[in-house]
């Protein structure tokens, strides 16, 4: 349950980018969350809604895009995805793979009403 501290981090990052006088106009915060990032999107939204009330960003909401866990296979050169986090190519069964996406979590856009 580290989604609460993640929600606090998000608020701090938004404050870095938006001038103080515009805090109240922040409408949406776009996030890309990897399916293997260890973050539960529903739980993060719940935490964000709970703590935003006591911040100047109380008019904002999170818009979350989930990024699939993708692998590149060094053997058959194909890109596959799976929902288990296993490093096995779904096409040829090889483990000589590397992770292309789906393990991190980024803020990509902040939308303001003005």
């Amino acid at each position, binding site marked *: 349950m580290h989604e609460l501290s993640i929600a606090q981090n998000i608020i701090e990052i938004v404050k870095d980018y938006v001038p103080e006088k515009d805090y109240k106009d922040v*409408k949406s915060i776009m996030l890309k969350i990897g399916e293997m990032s260890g973050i539960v999107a529903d739980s993060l939204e719940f935490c964000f809604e709970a703590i935003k009330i006591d911040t100047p960003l109380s008019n904002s909401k999170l818009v979350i895009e989930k990024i699939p866990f993708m692998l590149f296979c060094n053997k058959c050169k194909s890109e596959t995805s799976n929902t288990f986090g296993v490093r096995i190519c779904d096409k040829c069964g090889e483990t000589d793979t590397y992770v292309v996406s789906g393990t991190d979590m980024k803020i990509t856009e902040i939308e303001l009403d003005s």
Partner: protein
Amino acid sequence: MGIITIERKVLEKNDEIAALNRKLFKDNKIFVINIVSSPGSGKTSILERTIEELKGKINIAVVEGDVQTDFDAKRVERYNVPVVQIVTNGACHLEAKLVKDALDNIKLDNINFLVIENVGNLVCPAGYDLGEALKVVILSTTEGDDKPLKYPKMFMNSSVLVINKIDLLPYVNCNLDVLKKNALQINPDLKIFETSCTSKEGIKEWCEWIEENVST
């Protein structure tokens, strides 16, 4: 309506402090491991056996992380090694800033091996870089062989797996081969040790690996 386009990792602030910690460790030539596991897998017991085996050969210091109490620091103190207890007061993981603050209480120039024992939790500590050289995940046989598949992120982000309590294998429903196969499916690069803190099996091999990584 305005849109500000940014591309920032949510944990960037933690990563920045972790990078400072890592530089500090590098400058002082300290090999640092971050031990992660569920509660009760034997993190502190392995640490105790490790200190017994390596004391006099290398200079060890310990940072203990727990939600509450200084029980673990007290256990480690008995071996006369520098130890700092971090009490997170409810937080389920250590963050780089907590470790950075703890380091103020350790004389780093005398140390070449630092162990950070994270809060017992197989989920949250996986996401936080503390500046360590690598994460070591400990999994005990009593927890079952399916755990790597159930908690993939931890095994994905660790470089070493220590399978502990192997002396209990005859009594528990855990297949060692299945456990290793499951772990390697998540992370084919995992280095695996098998240990028991009771019979001391495997402790020597584990300590030899530490010695290989510590610059003396």
